[in-house]
């Protein structure tokens, strides 16, 4: 099958801020995104585990978004405006898709 190159932005983000991020992404008109729960991790803010956490702020998610390379920079701006001051991490990688018109 013929494949087309796209970019995959991955953002690790706190539960409390997730909704802000998805609202903002939708406003920019991304075609879609996916969110998966994290079970734990470690970063500058130390080690954490999802298990047992109480409180509405607890938990982190990985959100990723497959986009056209042309839109990458614009989206990174949007993402960083929200994520920069929070616990979190942004990375970008290359992927290939079959139906380029979706993104």
């Amino acid at each position, binding site marked *: 099958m013929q494949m087309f190159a796209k970019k995959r932005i991955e953002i690790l983000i706190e539960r409390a801020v997730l909704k802000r991020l998805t609202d903002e992404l939708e406003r920019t008109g991304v075609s879609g995104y996916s969110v998966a*729960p994290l079970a734990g991790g470690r970063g500058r803010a130390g080690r954490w585990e*999802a*298990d047992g956490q*109480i409180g*509405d702020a607890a938990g982190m998610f990985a959100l990723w978004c497959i986009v056209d390379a042309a839109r990458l920079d614009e989206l990174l701006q949007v993402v960083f405006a929200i994520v920069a*001051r929070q616990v979190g991490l942004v990375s970008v990688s290359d992927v290939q898709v079959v139906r380029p018109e979706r993104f």
Partner: protein
Amino acid sequence: MLALAVQNLVSPSVLFFGMGLGASLGRSDLSVPEAIARFLSLYLLISIGFRGGAEVAHQGVTSGLALAILAGIVLSAGLPFVAYTLLRYGAGLDHVNAAAVAGHYGSISAVTFVAITGALTQLALPYDGYMIAVAAAMETPAIFSALVIARSGQGRAKGEWSGNFLREIALNGSIVALLGAFVVGCITGERGMSSLKPFLLDAFPGFLCVFLLDMGLIAGRGLRDGWRSLSPAVAGFAWVMPLIGAAFAALFAWLIGLSAGSTAILMTLGASASYIAVPAAMRLALPAANPAIALTLSLGLTFPFNLIVGIPLYIAAAQTIAR
């Protein structure tokens, strides 16, 4: 008073808290699945809210209720300023973290509320059912005070007071659950209570034990990891602030003429610190604050302090104070 302290100390829920604390300090891998922990806090909020509502349905709305709610709001909004002053100038915590922690101490802890009502019931000391409404009312004002404090220091990101943000705070899931169940309780009253009793009332001590086991696990993790980031002065705050909060609450209770039981509850609310609703608001509003500090203080130090030392003290004081 000592007898009550001891009895409080050997209640199953406190022991389960201790068990969790010990397990996680000892690095056991015991854990409560995330979904269960989130369900348990939903359950507690619904159970507390519903019972409060059913009580109000039973006793009717009085002017005492309005006054007590007012007192609660003033306390919740005012205590963060006291807490901030202590933390910033007494304990030397930096501006943003001091503001965030202060927000936690203005708000209240639902489980500590449960503990005081349990103790009062055991002592057969009556209290007003509407105190749950007071507790609910005290959840949020502290958040706004924390924001005012944080802002006063330095220019902060735009959009913080936007309608959007206010809605995020007001429609926080925990607050909706608590108030919603309160309203349901008010409407369905005794008829509703009789059908929900086995789940919301009889099973409550059991679910509470699992929740407290979990709280112990988190508190232990916090103490283990966060030990180094807490100066002795900041740690000391976690034991001093409850007494100050309780003292202010006692004053207010006296002013509006609450009964001994309700006075003890208002004192406990003033003395307790949030770990369910406020942390989420602080992550949104003050992302630069380190969430581990507030959580370790409120869950690891203040919560056990209130259970073991505070509650017996507040009850004794309330009995002296109340007119």
